[in-house]
Protein backbone atom coordinates (compact mmCIF):
# COMPACT_ATOMS: atom_id res chain seq x y z
CA UNK A 1 0.00 0.00 0.00
CA UNK A 2 1.33 3.41 -0.99
CA UNK A 3 1.51 6.36 1.35
CA UNK A 4 -0.99 9.05 0.48
CA UNK A 5 -1.10 12.82 0.67
CA UNK A 6 -4.74 12.86 1.76
CA UNK A 7 -5.46 14.55 5.07
CA UNK A 8 -6.37 12.58 8.20
CA UNK A 9 -9.93 13.91 8.06
CA UNK A 10 -10.39 12.70 4.50
CA UNK A 11 -8.95 9.27 5.29
CA UNK A 12 -11.14 8.98 8.40
CA UNK A 13 -14.27 9.85 6.38
CA UNK A 14 -13.42 7.19 3.80
CA UNK A 15 -12.52 4.62 6.44
CA UNK A 16 -15.84 5.24 8.18
CA UNK A 17 -17.54 4.31 4.94
CA UNK A 18 -15.83 0.92 5.09
CA UNK A 19 -12.82 1.75 2.92
CA UNK A 20 -10.10 -0.50 4.34
CA UNK A 21 -7.43 1.03 2.10
CA UNK A 22 -8.07 4.44 3.60
CA UNK A 23 -7.68 2.96 7.06
CA UNK A 24 -4.54 1.18 5.87
CA UNK A 25 -3.14 4.54 4.83
CA UNK A 26 -3.77 5.82 8.36
CA UNK A 27 -1.98 2.79 9.74
CA UNK A 28 1.04 3.44 7.54
CA UNK A 29 1.05 7.07 8.58
CA UNK A 30 1.01 6.42 12.31
CA UNK A 31 2.43 2.94 12.79
CA UNK A 32 5.91 4.05 13.87
CA UNK A 33 4.58 6.74 16.12
CA UNK A 34 2.10 4.32 17.68
CA UNK A 35 4.69 1.65 18.31
CA UNK A 36 7.09 4.21 19.80
CA UNK A 37 4.41 5.52 22.16
CA UNK A 38 3.57 2.00 23.28
CA UNK A 39 7.28 1.29 23.54
CA UNK A 40 7.75 4.32 25.79
CA UNK A 41 5.18 2.89 28.17
CA UNK A 42 6.05 -0.80 27.90
CA UNK A 43 9.79 -0.82 27.26
CA UNK A 44 9.45 -3.93 25.10
CA UNK A 45 9.21 -4.12 21.31
CA UNK A 46 7.08 -7.22 20.96
CA UNK A 47 4.50 -6.04 23.47
CA UNK A 48 4.54 -2.54 21.97
CA UNK A 49 3.86 -3.94 18.53
CA UNK A 50 0.98 -6.06 19.75
CA UNK A 51 -0.52 -3.24 21.82
CA UNK A 52 -0.30 -0.74 18.95
CA UNK A 53 -1.87 -3.20 16.50
CA UNK A 54 -4.70 -3.81 18.94
CA UNK A 55 -5.09 -0.05 19.23
CA UNK A 56 -5.46 0.26 15.45
CA UNK A 57 -8.06 -2.51 15.40
CA UNK A 58 -9.99 -0.84 18.23
CA UNK A 59 -9.75 2.52 16.49
CA UNK A 60 -11.17 0.99 13.30
CA UNK A 61 -14.32 -0.14 15.08
CA UNK A 62 -14.54 3.04 17.14
CA UNK A 63 -14.32 5.36 14.14
CA UNK A 64 -18.09 5.86 14.28
CA UNK A 65 -17.71 7.36 17.74
CA UNK A 66 -14.88 9.64 16.65
CA UNK A 67 -15.94 13.28 16.75
CA UNK A 68 -14.88 15.43 13.84
CA UNK A 69 -14.00 18.38 16.07
CA UNK A 70 -11.01 16.56 17.60
CA UNK A 71 -7.82 15.54 15.87
CA UNK A 72 -7.53 11.93 14.78
CA UNK A 73 -3.90 11.88 15.86
CA UNK A 74 -4.53 12.71 19.54
CA UNK A 75 -7.69 10.59 19.62
CA UNK A 76 -5.77 7.62 18.27
CA UNK A 77 -2.76 8.20 20.54
CA UNK A 78 -5.12 8.06 23.48
CA UNK A 79 -6.30 4.62 22.37
CA UNK A 80 -2.68 3.50 21.97
CA UNK A 81 -1.79 4.73 25.45
CA UNK A 82 -4.78 3.10 27.07
CA UNK A 83 -4.01 -0.17 25.32
CA UNK A 84 -0.34 0.01 26.28
CA UNK A 85 -1.22 0.87 29.88
CA UNK A 86 -3.57 -2.14 30.04
CA UNK A 87 -0.82 -4.42 28.79
CA UNK A 88 1.64 -2.81 31.21
CA UNK A 89 -0.65 -3.44 34.18
CA UNK A 90 -1.16 -7.06 33.20
CA UNK A 91 2.49 -7.74 32.55
CA UNK A 92 3.60 -5.95 35.69
CA UNK A 93 1.22 -7.97 37.85
CA UNK A 94 2.60 -11.14 36.30
CA UNK A 95 6.17 -9.92 36.80
CA UNK A 96 7.11 -11.12 33.33
CA UNK A 97 9.62 -8.54 32.30
CA UNK A 98 11.77 -5.74 33.56
CA UNK A 99 10.73 -2.32 32.40
CA UNK A 100 13.27 -0.15 30.72
CA UNK A 101 16.13 -2.51 31.18
CA UNK A 102 19.46 -1.95 29.45
CA UNK A 103 20.43 -5.59 29.82
CA UNK A 104 21.13 -7.83 26.88
CA UNK A 105 18.83 -10.53 25.58
CA UNK A 106 19.89 -14.16 25.28
CA UNK A 107 20.79 -13.55 21.64
CA UNK A 108 23.18 -10.80 22.71
CA UNK A 109 20.89 -8.08 21.45
CA UNK A 110 20.70 -5.05 23.71
CA UNK A 111 17.28 -4.69 25.29
CA UNK A 112 17.73 -0.95 25.59
CA UNK A 113 15.05 1.13 23.89
CA UNK A 114 17.16 4.29 23.77
CA UNK A 115 19.88 4.83 21.25
CA UNK A 116 22.59 7.40 20.86
CA UNK A 117 22.36 9.89 18.04
CA UNK A 118 25.67 9.36 16.24
CA UNK A 119 28.23 12.16 16.24
CA UNK A 120 31.14 12.15 13.76
CA UNK A 121 33.39 14.37 15.84
CA UNK A 122 33.30 12.06 18.84
CA UNK A 123 36.33 10.14 20.00
CA UNK A 124 35.94 6.49 21.04
CA UNK A 125 36.36 7.51 24.67
CA UNK A 126 33.64 10.17 24.39
CA UNK A 127 31.42 7.67 22.67
CA UNK A 128 31.97 5.21 25.51
CA UNK A 129 31.11 7.88 28.09
CA UNK A 130 28.03 8.97 26.15
CA UNK A 131 26.88 5.37 26.06
CA UNK A 132 27.35 5.13 29.79
CA UNK A 133 25.29 8.29 30.27
CA UNK A 134 22.57 6.89 28.04
CA UNK A 135 22.41 3.72 30.14
CA UNK A 136 22.28 5.78 33.32
CA UNK A 137 19.47 7.89 31.87
CA UNK A 138 17.56 4.76 30.97
CA UNK A 139 17.97 3.40 34.49
CA UNK A 140 16.90 6.75 35.95
CA UNK A 141 13.78 6.87 33.75
CA UNK A 142 12.90 3.33 34.81
CA UNK A 143 12.93 4.44 38.44
CA UNK A 144 10.39 7.20 37.89
CA UNK A 145 6.82 6.58 39.04
CA UNK A 146 4.60 5.32 36.20
CA UNK A 147 2.72 8.54 35.46
CA UNK A 148 5.83 10.74 35.64
CA UNK A 149 7.68 8.36 33.34
CA UNK A 150 4.85 8.27 30.81
CA UNK A 151 4.59 12.04 30.64
CA UNK A 152 8.36 12.51 30.47
CA UNK A 153 8.80 9.96 27.69
CA UNK A 154 5.90 11.35 25.68
CA UNK A 155 7.30 14.85 25.94
CA UNK A 156 11.04 14.42 25.56
CA UNK A 157 11.40 11.13 23.69
CA UNK A 158 8.21 10.92 21.63
CA UNK A 159 8.26 14.67 21.06
CA UNK A 160 4.56 15.30 21.76
CA UNK A 161 3.49 18.79 22.77
CA UNK A 162 2.08 19.44 26.23
CA UNK A 163 -1.38 19.94 24.72
CA UNK A 164 -1.15 16.65 22.83
CA UNK A 165 -0.10 14.83 26.01
CA UNK A 166 -2.94 16.46 27.91
CA UNK A 167 -5.51 15.39 25.30
CA UNK A 168 -4.04 11.93 24.84
CA UNK A 169 -3.84 11.11 28.53
CA UNK A 170 -7.05 12.96 29.37
CA UNK A 171 -5.45 15.11 32.05
CA UNK A 172 -5.23 18.88 32.50
CA UNK A 173 -2.39 20.85 30.95
CA UNK A 174 -1.39 22.05 34.42
CA UNK A 175 -1.13 18.45 35.59
CA UNK A 176 1.09 17.57 32.62
CA UNK A 177 3.37 20.48 33.46
CA UNK A 178 3.50 19.51 37.12
CA UNK A 179 4.34 15.89 36.23
CA UNK A 180 7.07 17.06 33.87
CA UNK A 181 8.59 19.33 36.52
CA UNK A 182 8.55 16.50 39.08
CA UNK A 183 10.00 14.03 36.60
CA UNK A 184 12.81 16.37 35.60
CA UNK A 185 13.59 17.10 39.24
CA UNK A 186 13.82 13.41 40.08
CA UNK A 187 15.92 12.63 37.02
CA UNK A 188 18.29 15.44 37.95
CA UNK A 189 18.70 13.91 41.39
CA UNK A 190 19.35 10.46 39.95
CA UNK A 191 21.79 11.69 37.35
CA UNK A 192 23.71 14.43 39.19
CA UNK A 193 26.47 12.10 40.54
CA UNK A 194 26.93 10.53 37.10
CA UNK A 195 27.01 13.87 35.36
CA UNK A 196 29.47 15.28 37.93
CA UNK A 197 31.75 12.30 37.38
CA UNK A 198 31.58 12.68 33.59
CA UNK A 199 32.32 16.40 33.84
CA UNK A 200 35.26 15.76 36.16
CA UNK A 201 36.75 13.31 33.65
CA UNK A 202 36.37 15.72 30.75
CA UNK A 203 37.94 18.57 32.78
CA UNK A 204 40.91 16.37 33.61
CA UNK A 205 41.45 15.60 29.94
CA UNK A 206 41.50 19.31 29.13
Amino acid at each position, binding site marked *: MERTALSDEELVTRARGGN*RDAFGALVLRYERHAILIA*EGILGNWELA*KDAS*QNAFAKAYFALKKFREDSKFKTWFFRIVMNEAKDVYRKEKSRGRFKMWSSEETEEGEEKSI*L*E*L*IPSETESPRELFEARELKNQ*LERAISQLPDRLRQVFVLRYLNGLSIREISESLGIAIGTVKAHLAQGVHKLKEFLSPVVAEAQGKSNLRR
Partner: protein
Amino acid sequence: MNQEELPPELEKILKRVKLKEPPERLMKDYLSGVNAKIDRRGQGFHVSFPQVALACVIGLSLVGVLYLTFMARPKAIELVSEPIQKVEAKPQVVAVESQVQATQKALSVEEEMAVLEAFSEEHGEGVAEFFGDEEMFEDLSQLDEVELATPPNAPASRV
Protein backbone atom coordinates in the same frame (compact mmCIF):
# COMPACT_ATOMS: atom_id res chain seq x y z
CA MET B 1 7.90 23.44 30.45
CA ASN B 2 9.96 23.65 27.29
CA GLN B 3 13.03 21.66 26.51
CA GLU B 4 14.99 24.91 26.95
CA GLU B 5 13.98 24.98 30.62
CA LEU B 6 15.60 21.64 31.34
CA PRO B 7 18.68 21.56 33.53
CA PRO B 8 21.69 21.86 31.19
CA GLU B 9 23.19 18.47 32.09
CA LEU B 10 19.88 16.69 31.45
CA GLU B 11 19.29 18.64 28.26
CA LYS B 12 22.73 17.62 27.04
CA ILE B 13 22.00 13.95 27.61
CA LEU B 14 18.54 14.15 26.08
CA LYS B 15 19.92 15.78 22.96
CA ARG B 16 22.17 12.77 22.46
CA VAL B 17 19.49 10.09 22.79
CA LYS B 18 16.28 9.07 21.08
CA LEU B 19 13.90 6.16 21.23
CA LYS B 20 15.16 3.30 19.13
CA GLU B 21 13.36 2.87 15.85
CA PRO B 22 11.47 -0.42 15.81
CA PRO B 23 13.43 -3.18 14.03
CA GLU B 24 12.47 -3.87 10.42
CA ARG B 25 11.53 -7.46 11.22
CA LEU B 26 8.76 -6.10 13.46
CA MET B 27 7.46 -3.57 10.96
CA LYS B 28 7.49 -5.87 7.94
CA ASP B 29 4.14 -7.51 8.61
CA TYR B 30 2.68 -4.73 10.71
CA LEU B 31 -0.24 -3.73 8.46
CA SER B 32 -1.21 -7.33 7.73
CA GLY B 33 -1.21 -7.93 11.49
CA VAL B 34 -3.59 -4.99 12.00
CA ASN B 35 -5.89 -6.27 9.24
CA ALA B 36 -5.87 -9.75 10.77
CA LYS B 37 -6.86 -8.30 14.13
CA ILE B 38 -9.65 -6.27 12.52
CA ASP B 39 -10.95 -9.35 10.72
CA ARG B 40 -10.80 -11.41 13.89
CA ARG B 41 -12.68 -8.77 15.83
CA GLY B 42 -15.22 -8.30 13.07
CA GLN B 43 -15.98 -11.95 12.39
CA GLY B 44 -15.07 -14.00 15.38
CA PHE B 45 -16.43 -13.97 18.86
CA HIS B 46 -14.26 -11.55 20.73
CA VAL B 47 -13.92 -12.34 24.41
CA SER B 48 -13.83 -9.20 26.51
CA PHE B 49 -15.48 -7.99 29.70
CA PRO B 50 -19.12 -7.94 28.46
CA GLN B 51 -18.82 -11.48 27.13
CA VAL B 52 -17.21 -12.73 30.35
CA ALA B 53 -19.89 -10.98 32.45
CA LEU B 54 -22.66 -12.46 30.28
CA ALA B 55 -21.17 -15.95 30.59
CA CYS B 56 -20.99 -15.55 34.38
CA VAL B 57 -24.62 -14.43 34.60
CA ILE B 58 -25.83 -17.32 32.43
CA GLY B 59 -23.73 -19.80 34.42
CA LEU B 60 -25.03 -18.56 37.77
CA SER B 61 -28.63 -18.64 36.50
CA LEU B 62 -28.19 -22.26 35.37
CA VAL B 63 -26.72 -23.24 38.72
CA GLY B 64 -29.65 -21.53 40.47
CA VAL B 65 -32.22 -23.30 38.32
CA LEU B 66 -30.53 -26.68 38.87
CA TYR B 67 -30.41 -26.07 42.61
CA LEU B 68 -34.07 -25.12 42.79
CA THR B 69 -35.05 -28.07 40.61
CA PHE B 70 -33.14 -30.83 42.37
CA MET B 71 -31.60 -29.77 45.65
CA ALA B 72 -34.17 -27.48 47.25
CA ARG B 73 -37.14 -29.80 46.53
CA PRO B 74 -38.86 -31.26 49.67
CA LYS B 75 -38.40 -35.00 50.13
CA ALA B 76 -41.38 -37.16 49.20
CA ILE B 77 -43.09 -38.73 52.23
CA GLU B 78 -43.28 -42.51 52.05
CA LEU B 79 -46.80 -43.83 52.41
CA VAL B 80 -47.07 -46.70 54.86
CA SER B 81 -49.43 -49.40 53.67
CA GLU B 82 -49.53 -51.31 56.98
CA PRO B 83 -52.14 -50.23 59.55
CA ILE B 84 -50.67 -48.07 62.24
CA GLN B 85 -50.69 -49.65 65.66
CA LYS B 86 -52.22 -47.63 68.43
CA VAL B 87 -49.66 -46.45 70.88
CA GLU B 88 -50.75 -45.37 74.31
CA ALA B 89 -49.06 -42.13 74.97
CA LYS B 90 -50.29 -41.68 78.50
CA PRO B 91 -47.89 -39.56 80.44
CA GLN B 92 -45.85 -41.48 82.98
CA VAL B 93 -46.52 -38.91 85.67
CA VAL B 94 -50.25 -39.63 85.52
CA ALA B 95 -49.60 -43.33 85.96
CA VAL B 96 -47.42 -42.68 89.05
CA GLU B 97 -50.08 -40.40 90.54
CA SER B 98 -52.78 -43.02 90.05
CA GLN B 99 -50.51 -45.60 91.69
CA VAL B 100 -50.04 -43.31 94.69
CA GLN B 101 -53.76 -42.71 94.88
CA ALA B 102 -54.42 -46.44 94.67
CA THR B 103 -51.91 -47.08 97.47
CA GLN B 104 -53.48 -44.37 99.59
CA LYS B 105 -56.90 -45.75 99.07
CA ALA B 106 -55.74 -49.24 99.88
CA LEU B 107 -54.58 -48.28 103.40
CA SER B 108 -57.06 -48.97 106.10
CA VAL B 109 -57.35 -46.88 109.25
CA GLU B 110 -55.37 -49.42 111.21
CA GLU B 111 -52.60 -49.36 108.69
CA GLU B 112 -52.47 -45.59 108.71
CA MET B 113 -52.27 -45.65 112.49
CA ALA B 114 -49.45 -48.12 112.33
CA VAL B 115 -47.57 -45.86 109.94
CA LEU B 116 -48.08 -42.84 112.17
CA GLU B 117 -46.96 -44.76 115.24
CA ALA B 118 -43.88 -45.97 113.53
CA PHE B 119 -43.16 -42.43 112.45
CA SER B 120 -43.63 -41.00 115.95
CA GLU B 121 -41.45 -43.70 117.45
CA GLU B 122 -38.74 -43.06 114.98
CA HIS B 123 -38.90 -39.28 114.79
CA GLY B 124 -40.84 -38.34 117.90
CA GLU B 125 -37.88 -36.78 119.68
CA GLY B 126 -36.91 -34.84 116.65
CA VAL B 127 -40.39 -33.49 116.20
CA ALA B 128 -40.53 -32.48 119.89
CA GLU B 129 -37.26 -30.67 119.53
CA PHE B 130 -38.58 -29.03 116.44
CA PHE B 131 -41.61 -27.71 118.15
CA GLY B 132 -39.56 -26.88 121.27
CA ASP B 133 -42.27 -27.73 123.81
CA GLU B 134 -42.26 -31.35 124.83
CA GLU B 135 -45.31 -31.03 127.08
CA MET B 136 -47.44 -29.49 124.40
CA PHE B 137 -46.37 -32.20 122.00
CA GLU B 138 -47.42 -34.87 124.47
CA ASP B 139 -50.76 -33.13 124.94
CA LEU B 140 -51.24 -33.05 121.21
CA SER B 141 -50.40 -36.73 120.99
CA GLN B 142 -52.91 -37.53 123.68
CA LEU B 143 -55.53 -35.48 121.90
CA ASP B 144 -54.80 -37.38 118.75
CA GLU B 145 -55.18 -40.67 120.53
CA VAL B 146 -58.43 -39.48 122.04
CA GLU B 147 -59.75 -38.38 118.69
CA LEU B 148 -58.50 -41.40 116.83
CA ALA B 149 -59.81 -43.88 119.35
CA THR B 150 -63.10 -44.95 118.02
CA PRO B 151 -65.81 -44.72 120.66
CA PRO B 152 -68.14 -47.66 120.58
CA ASN B 153 -71.15 -45.43 119.82
CA ALA B 154 -69.43 -43.25 117.24
CA PRO B 155 -70.90 -43.15 113.75
CA ALA B 156 -68.94 -44.97 111.00
CA SER B 157 -68.69 -41.82 108.86
CA ARG B 158 -66.37 -40.18 111.46
CA VAL B 159 -63.62 -42.53 110.43
